């Protein structure tokens, strides 16, 4: 009995998938192999039996009805495309929201730092001010003598992480 690789070779030969030398090799081999020749005949006849099969299949709907469905589908797709195009700027805003939110947080903290600095006035009797902005998760330190201001930011805010720690400890 032929092995599987030979069977597949016969099929590839029939389908014209072999290179010239390979095809010649299989052709020569087939001459002395009645089993192989019979298999090739079977494979070829199967292909021939399928010829023209699809020609007998007809769409089971009238031209007018089918076209009405196609044209409605086209209309729906075009309306959807128009709606997507109109919604595009909003979509852009939503996608960039995650970048805008931290930036807005930094801006708020900077503004608060500026306000605090002005209110304390600055002077030799008040060389340093430390203000904790618990809600924002930031701390401002201003050293008038050195003329320096430091702003520490934590993201997410320390208050959030401490709450999580607390919650975790409750479970234990």
């Amino acid at each position, binding site marked *: 009995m032929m092995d599987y690789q030979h069977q597949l070779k016969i099929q590839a030969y029939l389908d014209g998938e072999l290179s010239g030398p390979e095809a010649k090799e299989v052709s020569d081999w087939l001459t002395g192999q009645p089993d192989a020749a019979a298999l090739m005949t079977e494979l070829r006849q199967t*292909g021939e039996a399928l010829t023209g099969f699809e020609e007998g299949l007809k769409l089971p709907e009238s031209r007018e009805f*089918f076209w009405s469905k196609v044209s409605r589908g086209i209309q729906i797709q075009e309306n959807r495309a128009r709606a997507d195009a109109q919604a595009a700027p909003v979509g852009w805003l939503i996608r960039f929201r995650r970048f805008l939110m931290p930036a807005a947080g930094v801006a708020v903290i900077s503004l608060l730092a500026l306000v605090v600095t002005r209110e304390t006035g600055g002077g030799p009797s008040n060389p340093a001010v430390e203000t904790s902005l618990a809600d924002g998760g930031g701390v401002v330190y201003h050293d008038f003598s050195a003329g320096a201001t430091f702003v520490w930011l934590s993201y997410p805010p320390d208050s959030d992480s401490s709450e999580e720690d607390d919650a975790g400890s409750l479970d234990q």
Partner: protein
Amino acid sequence: MSEADHSSADDPTLVRAAQTGDMLAFEELVARHRDKIYARAFSMMRNEDEAVDLSQEAWVKGWQRLHQFQGESSFGTWMTRIVINLCLDQLRKHKRQRTESIEEMTEESGGVERQMPVVTINPTARLERAELRARIDRALGQLSHEHRTVLVLHEFEDLEYKEIAKVMECSIGTVMSRLFYARRKMAALLADVKNENWK
């Protein structure tokens, strides 16, 4: 272009008109090729409703992508490729939803097609065309969708092994194996071979 012009115009002329937004030209193209597109969808899906829906979807996609059609192949071939891709997507969805069929397990474990006795099919001598078509129809329905798809792409679409492997996202060896199995099973079914190995 008038309605009479549409019906007498050739495909390339209608395509050019449709590319400029002429819906009547596109309607004429649909009318000319709708049976072929449906037939391909039906061969692959084996379900009339799905084949109608997918061929309709193919025409909608065809309209949307019409500007991409450059005329390297015929319009009918281009549309056929669209419906084939839609069918493949649909079959992949089906596959995700179902467990492996017995058909596939047989292929994996036994390779019964290798031991099948060779049969002779002589359709024109023994069967009327309509009867043969009905038997082919039933036989195709007994193949798994993987085997049927390979057979359809090779026999009806004339794709080479490497092209089939590409569209089905598998190796050429798998294509050869599936095609061999599909042909041998079809041969057996068309020759009314009753063999316990196939059950």
